[in-house]
């Protein structure tokens, strides 16, 4: 711990007076002094030559940044739907009782802070929490109490990890409780991969040939949007610019997805090779891995791998032995914002700013990172590219369906007996998948996470593919005893919180939709409320600026479509209108002031 001025001076000296490093500077100052106080923010603004409000704007945008002290120990407990299914609420209560404060507060001595956070990518081992960045999984109330006991005793957080997970999680450098839970290995990502086998093949070809090979494979982006990777690289290669950049999107924030976490843990070399392949294809000399803050526990490990790859000549000057191809990779850390998984928001964030998506056109391929042509690709897409180099585009294209080639890595969680990672060929039916993961009792599956679709039994025969059931990887199995509307509400809460606030329909529309859902859930809805919600979902989807807003009403829209009876059961029958006005709520503030109980009969 040091004082604000010293800390800012030290961190700015390390990064240089460069506004594009603002996010890194802010985060490191916070690591140093526990928060980014007004004094620290002013110091950062001064050094970088920007307004203090610009620094404050960045701090206030990201979930893990704070102007107030967060506590010596910061507990971020996941509050996403699957965490709640797995007993999160009892764990939260245990934390509160043991610490003596509520979530959103710090203990009276300021030592322990309790905070909610949205999905941390551990859905197959919930309830889970991050304490000072260290992951604690499969929590129970007893374990929570024990953790608090150890924090109160002043123990080092890393020393609180008593059991470690499988695979590389066991390594000394990661040393995490996290489990990979790889249930099914496929031929592309989790088959054995010999280091160098992808990039060496690539540099033996011309960049144009590499792009051709990727095109031949019909690889489409694995983050969810499904844009053809070969085409993206071609656009980027052909765009005018001084430099080109490869950005790897390792900011999987969609609740229910955790596949990139496992790929980063078990296949980092393959990923970095994929980035080098992309760099070679588009003519870039720099790659940036944008790593979500929740996966910070992998940072040292990933940097270690990069160092080894430089040593082996796979990265750096004349990468993979190719004269004239200089390519290196650095890692940028996020700070807690789902929207940064959107490619242009990711670029903004990587440039040290608020993670707000950009207007398009221009697309990142023309005007991306630092204003230069940029290819932003998902972790899984880049790994697939490395494998395609090794095995050929034709080999890859043979797998899958007509419009979806190759395999998909799925993260399955929820009401199933074998949650975890499944690498399956496109075209597998949902039914078959449920059988494999022990989720045959499901009544609903959230395909592609909250921004995807909630489907019922009538769709279980559909195939996982871009054309029938697209998914970025998140698959949440929902059993018969779950409160479906509660899950929908949790997802809407998530979108309300994670909207960047830029455009009207997403910022205001989701709040309005959530409120109307609450009216129905409270038993005060009528048929007309369902019609309103369907229509308002349409407005938000049609008018929003980016993918977040355009998909944010999906939890309501797709359950209204596929599970209308669940809503119907909550409605008041035979009435056209139920007033939303609630006298008790309306006079609550007054009653509190007057010291009366806010119970008004007859309303």
């Amino acid at each position, binding site marked *: 711990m040091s004082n604000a001025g010293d800390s800012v001076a030290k961190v700015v000296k390390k990064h240089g007076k460069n506004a594009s490093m603002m996010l890194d500077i802010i985060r490191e100052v916070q690591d140093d002094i526990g928060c980014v106080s007004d004094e620290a923010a002013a110091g950062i603004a001064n050094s970088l*030559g*920007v*307004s*203090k*409000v*610009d620094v*404050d*704007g960045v701090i*206030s*945008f990201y979930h893990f940044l704070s102007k107030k002290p967060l506590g010596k120990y910061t507990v971020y407990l996941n509050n996403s739907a699957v965490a709640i299914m797995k007993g999160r609420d009892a764990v939260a209560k245990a934390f509160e009782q043991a610490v003596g404060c509520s979530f959103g507060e710090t203990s009276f001595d300021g030592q322990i802070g309790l905070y909610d956070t949205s999905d941390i990518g551990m859905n197959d081992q919930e309830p889970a929490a991050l304490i000072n960045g260290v992951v604690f999984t499969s929590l129970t109330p007893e374990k929570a109490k024990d953790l608090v006991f150890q924090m109160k005793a002043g123990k080092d957080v890393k020393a609180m990890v008593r059991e470690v997970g499988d695979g590389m999680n066991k390594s000394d450098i990661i040393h995490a409780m996290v489990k990979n839970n790889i249930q099914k290995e496929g031929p592309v990502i989790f088959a054995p991969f010999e280091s160098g086998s992808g990039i060496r093949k690539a540099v033996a070809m011309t960049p144009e040939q590499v792009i051709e090979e990727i095109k031949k494979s019909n690889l489409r982006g694995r983050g969810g949007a499904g844009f053809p990777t070969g085409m993206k690289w071609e656009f980027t290669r052909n765009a005018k610019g001084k430099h080109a950049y490869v950005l790897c999107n390792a900011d999987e924030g969609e609740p229910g997805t955790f596949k990139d976490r496992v790929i980063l843990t078990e296949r980092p070399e393959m990923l970095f090779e994929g980035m080098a392949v992309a760099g070679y294809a588009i003519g870039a000399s720099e790659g940036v891995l944008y790593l979500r803050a929740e996966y910070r526990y992998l940072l040292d490990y990933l940097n270690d791998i990069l160092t080894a790859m430089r040593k082996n000549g796979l990265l750096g000057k004349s990468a993979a032995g190719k004269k004239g191809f200089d390519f290196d990779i650095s890692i940028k850390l996020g700070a807690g*914002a789902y*929207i940064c998984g959107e490619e242009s928001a990711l670029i903004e964030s990587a440039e040290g700013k*608020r993670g707000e998506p950009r*207007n*398009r*056109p221009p697309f990142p391929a023309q005007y991306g990172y630092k204003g230069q042509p940029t290819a932003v690709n998902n972790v899984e897409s880049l790994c697939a590219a490395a494998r395609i180099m090794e095995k050929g585009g034709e080999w890859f294209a043979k797998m899958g369906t007509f419009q979806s080639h190759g395999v998909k890595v799925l993260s399955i969680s929820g009401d199933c007996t074998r949650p975890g990672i499944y690498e399956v060929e496109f075209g597998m039916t949902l039914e078959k998948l449920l059988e494999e993961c022990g989720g045959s009792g499901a009544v609903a599956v959230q395909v592609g996470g909250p921004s995807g679709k909630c489907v019922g039994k009538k769709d279980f025969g559909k195939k996982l593919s871009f054309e029938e059931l697209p998914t970025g990887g998140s698959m949440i199995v929902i059993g018969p005893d779950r409160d479906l509307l509660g899950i929908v509400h949790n997802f809407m809460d998530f979108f*309300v*919180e*994670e*909207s*960047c*606030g*830029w*455009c*009207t*329909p997403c*910022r*205001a*529309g*989701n*709040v*309005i939709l959530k*409120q*109307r859902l609450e009216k129905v859930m409270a038993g005060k809805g009528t048929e007309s409320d369902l019609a*309103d919600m369907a229509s*308002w979902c349409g*407005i938000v989807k*049609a*008018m*929003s*600026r980016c993918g977040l807003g355009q998909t944010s009403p999906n939890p309501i829209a797709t359950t209204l479509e596929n599970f209308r009876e669940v809503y119907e059961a909550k409605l008041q029958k035979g009435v056209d209108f139920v007033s*939303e006005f609630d006298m008790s709520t309306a006079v609550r503030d007054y009653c509190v002031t007057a010291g009366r109980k806010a119970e008004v009969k007859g309303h």
Partner: protein
Amino acid sequence: MSTITFEIDGKQCKARAGQTIVEAARENGIYIPVLCWYEGLKPAGICRMCTVKVNGRNMAACTTPAAEGMIVDNAIPELEDMRKALVEMLFVEGNHMCPTCEKSGNCELQALGYRYGLLAPRFPYLFPVRKMDAVYTKIMIDTNRCVQCRRCVRGITTKDGKHIFAMMSRSGKTTIVADPALEAKISDDLAKKAMDQCPVGAILKKEIGFAVPIGRRKYDKAPIGSDIAGK
């Protein structure tokens, strides 16, 4: 050579290369409603009022360049209803009390409300608790009225290019603030510019108010957009 020919609602329009659909439409006498757009500022695609269909796809007309052969749908019922919905969202999202507002009659949100015949919004009022900030020397910021258009963020800077206004937070909690140190040094002219550039009454210059009485203000005389499309 650099003249672009395209179509809005069936009318042939001409544009110069690089012009956005909103700019070109204005020059062709077609009104596309805007709120966050402001002449001379970099368009930001915030309010989404200018959403049009470009070859069938929804796009913000303020950020989309006009292109040869484009077919644009503008004043079609489907879009007009959604634009009205956006105006309604902005009304329920903040706390807008027109009769007591210094901007009444000059307010673009109010004017859009009139243009779209807004009587009662389809959405319930959210009645957020928002801040009225008068700590500044030359201006005051009433975030109850803010529509988050960021005209102030984009357009009001110090001579060396520093932002005087910035957005705080995210989601429905986003709010504008001014940098107290920089605001303390702004000229009267810049303070007036900030107020004039604000489409609503969120940024007001201190001391002088209601110099022109309500009833004799810009949109009291003619509806918004009539200077462009002669309505």
